[in-house]
């Protein structure tokens, strides 16, 4: 309050002391800012699809406009990370022992992991980081989160191309202590598309739930970066999935089998590196994660629709 409330001392107007009562029939009024019903909400999102598409599209094209190398960073970034992990894990710690085509294994792991976490952390920040847009317009807020995920997909297309090229060219390079299976382009590579589609659904569901949490409590952001690390070490990004069962810790094996990101990596690796199918259980786990996260994440987000414009 700007000034000490001198005038307030006169006694506040009690709501009860109104001397006029206006009686009206409110049946053709709406409650301003009310959350629409679930199906109406979905229809509203659909009617804003052009906004959604244009928003994600324009942000992709401007994403790296502050860097002098521009969009090259979209590719350079994972390549540099991949090289760093190769030196640390592949050469220094030698976690690649016993993994055939370890370079391809590592490339798929690092690139896909970056795609996954960038989308989830971006989506989690979609409401809290776009307060100006939220304050200015009235569209259903889920559009912002969906648009972040779509944008991440758009901007990852060149990255996936590079990933495929790298796997094809140097993925089967021979390292000491492992077999090298020649990698060829077969129809198995097409499994990439359904697999990434399911991964996108998981990512969107998580983003929706996290976006509400981050907007309500900024503290969640710290937990997200922590959980990303945990996910990194339990998804077999740079080591073999058999590592834990070899060590005799079977429960960790089960945890990994239930990890959606590990399922994505395992499916991709079997399709691209070893020219075959992954365990069908991987598809079942990934599919259930996709359907479950989409449903629950969307419900969580929709339920909080009225809270997103609030100052924090």
């Amino acid at each position, binding site marked *: 309050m700007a000034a000490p409330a001198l*005038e307030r001392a006169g006694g506040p107007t009690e*709501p009860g002391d109104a001397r006029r009562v206006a*009686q009206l029939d409110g049946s053709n009024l709406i409650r*301003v800012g009310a959350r629409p019903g679930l199906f109406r909400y979905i229809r509203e999102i659909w009617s804003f699809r052009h906004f959604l598409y*244009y928003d994600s599209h324009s942000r992709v094209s*401007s994403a790296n406009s502050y860097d002098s190398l521009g969009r090259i960073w979209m590719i350079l970034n994972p390549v540099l990370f991949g090289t760093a992990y190769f030196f640390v894990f592949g050469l220094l710690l030698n976690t690649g022992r016993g993994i055939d085509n370890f370079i391809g294994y590592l490339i798929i792991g690092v690139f896909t992991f970056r795609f996954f976490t960038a989308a989830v952390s971006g989506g989690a920040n979609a409401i809290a980081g776009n307060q100006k847009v939220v304050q200015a317009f009235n569209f259903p807020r889920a559009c912002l989160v969906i648009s972040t995920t779509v944008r991440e997909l758009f901007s990852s297309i060149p990255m996936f191309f590079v990933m495929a090229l790298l796997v094809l060219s140097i993925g089967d390079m021979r390292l000491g202590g492992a077999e090298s299976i020649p990698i060829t382009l077969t129809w198995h590579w097409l499994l990439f598309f359904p697999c990434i589609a399911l991964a996108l659904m998981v990512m969107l569901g998580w983003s929706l739930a996290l976006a509400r949490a981050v907007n309500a409590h900024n503290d969640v952001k710290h937990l997200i970066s922590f959980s990303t690390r945990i996910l990194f070490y339990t998804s077999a990004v740079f080591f073999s999935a058999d590592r834990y069962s070899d060590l005799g810790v079977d429960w960790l094996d089960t945890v990994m089998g239930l990890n959606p990101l590990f399922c994505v990596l395992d499916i991709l690796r079997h399709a691209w590196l070893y020219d075959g199918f992954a365990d069908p259980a991987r598809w079942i786990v990934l599919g259930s994660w996709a359907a479950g996260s989409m449903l629950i994440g969307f419900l969580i987000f929709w339920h909080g629709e009225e809270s997103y414009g609030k100052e924090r």
Partner: protein
Amino acid sequence: MSTSTPYVPRRHTDSEADLIAQDLAIELDDAAGRAEAWDEHPFTQQTPVIQTVDPENVCMVVDDASMTYRVRSSTGNNDSGGRISRGLKRITGAGWAEVHALSNLSFIVNRGESVGVIGTNGSGKSTLMKLLTGKVRPTSGEVYATSTPVMLGVNAALVKEISGRENIRLGCLAMGLSPEQTAAKYEQIVEISGLSDALEMPLKTYSSGMSSRLQFAIATSVDPDILLIDEALNTGDAQFRARTKERLDEVRANAGAVFLVSHSLGTIKQMCTRVIWIEQGEMLADGDPQWVCEQYEEYTSHKSNGRTRAAKVVYERTRLRLDPIKVDFTSGSRPKKAGSSRIR
């Protein structure tokens, strides 16, 4: 300055209900021994006058809305709570600051009205605007309207990294226009903004005046039914201001009800048919622009000259004139449904 309206406490003069109540009390007093049957304070108690409002005519209903902000802050409100929680706050540096921005506001706006909102800085005008557009839900009470009100302000978001052209498209789509409608509005927006030379440049190269012109042009490209106009729209050079006024008059003419927040009493008197004065989160006056603006001018001039007592007198006598209203929906007709986020 002198006031045209002398200080007359309303309760004892122009309320018919008061006179009736006094008469009744005298009669009852005459009938000895029956006085206990009447209320303890016959001179101040009265039954409220019930008015029926035509629902066809109503545009907006604010029903007993209060707003208290709780903002995370390391400095505010560190002395509340028990000893342990106080100590904890000191260690973590995290705490809440509570701001009572508005309390128990009720009013009804009819179709065709232009409502000016005045008040000193920090009185709760912007909070009221946020409640009216539904960006924030009141802590208690509700806001109802015939359609979702649209705020024209300079805070309409623009994305800094993309060009002016893309921002126009993005803004239109965010308001729920279809791509065809956006294309149709495009020329008009460019013309109003007067920025045809800079459209291909990214927005971060724009000056603040240029981007607020673009924001104004995007925001006024639609014709909303309930319109809220922020005072800060009066920016820009003389040439732009003329264009602004023209477009604003057009939009106002098409709107069903208009709210105007401004510190310029001239604009308010000229444009509004009714003025609401909010002071320290409470409604102080609601009525004829001429009268309310006079009271407000007197109040602010006393305040700025440090005459606190004189200011308090103006405050009190203005408040006595206030005739607060209570909203009562006929049974079962309290609105629940949500409005569409698209603008027709």
